[in-house]
């Protein structure tokens, strides 16, 4: 019987010819990712096993959540990671100054290859499906144990097939695609399932769009999101990945549990209202103006160079509205550097944005843009749960960099075409 991309990937890493949805299997992992929040508890579990790390070249450690250290406790956590890296000679560690937000950084550094399988102690690890890899978020215990064994168990997920048709219109991006999908299937619509993207529309999506889309598979409850390997993937990986790899394509007779079609031509800018990513509306349908206090442009969802280009395109020659804070956070040091060389940072500064060094910071209510009671933020991040970005009575509206930038200028949730 035919297999989906995810089934084939799992079979390959379990060393068997065939797997089917529902089966429990054990897989070799190609890499394990941890951050400053999830590493210390993983280390505790790892130490209990009493074995050395399975491969010091396959452990990726990125201090990004509360770094540059926001307080003494965060500094202690980051130090636990740094000390371990020094002791064990871990190859892939990224110090502040070379650091980026993990899911922006790892693809950019060529650390994820098509057809590979990896886990990360961060729920947005599902991002790498954009590169035709299988990747999923796990807890610290899973990561700590895998750090010793190089293996982990999975239940082979059923797969939802999402067929993309057409091409995205102007001012519409990958963020709108994934918000539209979550709005349709709900925050548990893909619970325990893989989301496989297919169709002629895939070719028109940039790698940045695909990374954004897979990043939020978890917000529909998904185990992973995955794209087919094509010319866009090949071009992205060229000069980044230095090892050989074997992409995976779905069999023509693969079996899917559900099929969804999204017509990209007809898509409009989407915004998810508080307090769930499934509460989606088209910006054009908002009747009463929704005034805002803050805008965040960045995160593992939308902190890539292309996202900053999109925001800058809207913000150029405009000013952020009075009493609105617009905070731009490039997703990695390379993104920051390129944005500076290409004049994007200048556009942001001229528009009165605050520009930060890479950090997850405000996305999860850490620091660098925490909100007071009653405040509202339009954010390019991934979650708008109650209290996520600060006070329990603050509100987060999720949107694309285009909508976020337009909203910063207008002082209310707005589309780029409204900016004169």
């Amino acid at each position, binding site marked *: 019987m035919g297999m989906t991309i995810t089934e084939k990937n799992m079979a390959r890493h379990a060393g068997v010819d065939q797997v089917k949805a529902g089966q*429990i299997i054990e897989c070799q992992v190609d890499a394990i990712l941890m951050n400053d*929040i*999830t590493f*210390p*508890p993983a280390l505790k*579990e790892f130490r*209990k*096993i*009493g074995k050395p790390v399975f491969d010091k070249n396959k452990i990726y450690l990125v201090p990004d*959540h*509360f770094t540059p250290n*926001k*307080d003494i*406790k*965060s500094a*202690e*956590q980051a130090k636990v990671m740094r000390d371990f890296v020094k002791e064990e000679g871990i190859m892939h560690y990224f110090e502040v100054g070379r650091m980026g937000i993990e899911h922006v950084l790892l693809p950019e550094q060529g650390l994820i290859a098509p057809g590979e399988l990896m886990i*990360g*102690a*961060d*729920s947005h*690890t599902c991002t790498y499906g954009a590169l035709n890899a299988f990747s999923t*978020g*796990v*807890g*610290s*215990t*899973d990561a*700590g*144990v895998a750090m*010793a*064994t190089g293996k982990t*168990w999975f*239940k082979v997920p059923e797969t939802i097939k999402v067929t993309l048709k057409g091409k995205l219109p102007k001012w519409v991006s990958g963020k709108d695609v994934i918000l539209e999908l979550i709005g349709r299937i709900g*925050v*548990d619509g893909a*619970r*325990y399932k893989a989301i496989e993207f297919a169709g002629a529309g895939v070719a028109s999506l940039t790698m940045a769009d695909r990374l954004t889309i897979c990043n939020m598979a*978890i917000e529909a*409850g998904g*185990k992973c999101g995955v794209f087919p390997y094509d010319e866009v993937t090949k071009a992205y990986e060229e000069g980044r990945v230095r090892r050989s790899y074997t992409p995976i394509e779905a069999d023509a007779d693969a079996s899917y549990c559900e099929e969804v079609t999204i017509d990209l031509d007809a898509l409009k800018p989407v915004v998810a209202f508080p307090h*769930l990513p499934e509460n989606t509306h088209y910006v054009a349908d908002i009747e009463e103006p929704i005034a805002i206090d803050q805008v965040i442009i960045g995160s593992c969802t939308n902190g890539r160079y292309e996202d900053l280009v999109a925001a800058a395109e809207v913000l150029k020659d405009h000013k952020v509205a009075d009493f609105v804070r617009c905070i731009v956070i490039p997703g990695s040091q390379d993104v920051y550097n390129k944005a500076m060389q290409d004049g994007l940072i200048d556009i942001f500064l001229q528009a009165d944005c605050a520009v930060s060094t890479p950090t997850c910071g405000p996305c*999860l*209510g*850490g620091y660098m843009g*925490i909100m007071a009671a009653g405040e509202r933020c339009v954010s390019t991040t991934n*979650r708008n*749960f*109650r*209290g*996520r970005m*600060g006070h*329990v009575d603050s509100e987060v509206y999720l949107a694309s960099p285009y909508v976020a930038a337009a909203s910063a200028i207008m002082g209310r949730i707005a589309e780029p075409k409204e900016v004169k």
Partner: protein
Amino acid sequence: MDYQGTIWRYGDNVDTDVIIPARYLAIADMEELATHAMEDIDTTFAQKVKPGQIMVAGKNFGCGSSREHAPAVIKASGISCIVADSFARIFFRNAINIGLSVIEIGEAVKEIKAGHEVGVDLGKGLVYDLTTGKTYQGTALPPFIQAIAKAGGLVNFAKSR
């Protein structure tokens, strides 16, 4: 019966950020962290929860982050078992891995209301509403996962292999 007690009742899509707000994540001690458990949707929980009590919730419990702090603070708060319509995938896996009992009984969970007393037999996968006298069959765990749970979590399981 493995567990028996009065319940803390919550709705659908209880996310990891309300179970333990990320603003406290620099705290590494689970007992200390547990004093903030659930506070964004229930300010009484952390003060009033008693050891052995059971949490009952709707669908997609624990959606959001992969941070193990979420099941860990619930365990540290004294809750013995969570009964839900369904769990988010990573939360479910984490709960098993750290030795917090979880059981899914589907939509019938709606019949179990705040104030009821509930019993759980994990071996049989049964949930009893002791207030109404009704019994609910939960989804059985696959043998591999039962073995992890029986070992007391993933670390013990991995050490024993």
